[in-house]
């Protein structure tokens, strides 16, 4: 079994008030030097079976049609092996 991560972020041109609220709060909390904050979503998917090309293609499609709304969001798919998974994969 392996973990696939899908990161979904608002497109750069879309206003991100959540990120802005975080950024505005930082100086008040004594944290300087962060010039921008964007907040997005992280999905951790536990995939049964091997994460091969076919599986990744399906997950890509899932991200595109479901996990992200591509009118407003971009996404990235990453494979992240979980402990003990590597052996099982080979």
């Amino acid at each position, binding site marked *: 079994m392996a973990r696939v991560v899908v990161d979904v972020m608002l497109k750069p*041109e879309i206003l991100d*008030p959540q990120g802005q609220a975080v950024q505005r709060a930082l100086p008040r909390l004594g944290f300087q030097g962060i010039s921008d904050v964007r907040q997005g979503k992280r999905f951790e998917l536990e995939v049964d079976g091997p994460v091969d090309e076919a599986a990744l293609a399906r997950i890509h499609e899932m991200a595109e049609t479901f996990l992200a*709304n591509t*009118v*407003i969001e971009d996404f990235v798919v990453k494979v992240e092996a979980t402990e003990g998974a590597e052996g099982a994969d080979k």
Partner: protein
Amino acid sequence: MTARIGVVTFPGTLDDRDTQRAVRVAGAEAVPLWHRDKDLKQVDAVVLPGGFSYGDYLRAGAISRFSPVMESVIDQAKAGMPVLGICNGFQVLTETHLLPGAMLRNNHLHFICRDQKLRVETNSTAWTADYEPGQEISIPLKNIDGRYVADERTLDMLEAEGRVAFRYLDVNPNGSLRDIAGITNAAGNVVGLMPHPEHAVEPLIGTGRTDGLGFFTSILKNLVGAR
């Protein structure tokens, strides 16, 4: 026989019973529709009511969009059946791409419940015929994901084609681009808006005004007239 107006219930829908009441107050027959059924029970029009379908998890409207009932609603809407999406229903309509753009978290990040002034920008939709173009109405607004966004081209197109159906007046409550509170598709049968006309159909209840009744009388006239 009067018009039959379907009101869809998704898991997590909240305003279905209120919408059914509004339909009845306007003199039409309200027909409950269940998200798992493809069958639209021969209704003449469909309302997708407000609420938090599927908890609004992932994105508002994102999961409901894939329900069996929506397959039929999408087909019928494309064939010209009147569909009104209120609040969560509007979010579902943008997620299905029956209406362009998307809804995002309010710019102030809070849920907001207020009596909201709107301008009805067009009465050439199935749901606004009973209003005067430019008429100002006040109806409740209540949501946390009410910020309408679309790219500039889409916004320009909506403006040019007269498809901005409602605009916020006095206060833009959520940062919606160009003060857009609701839009229509090109044919005028599919309309979506964030504020809640179904909560403004009886004096005394809620804000005490009946400014929302026009949505339901419009569709009734439209359907009965068409027969």
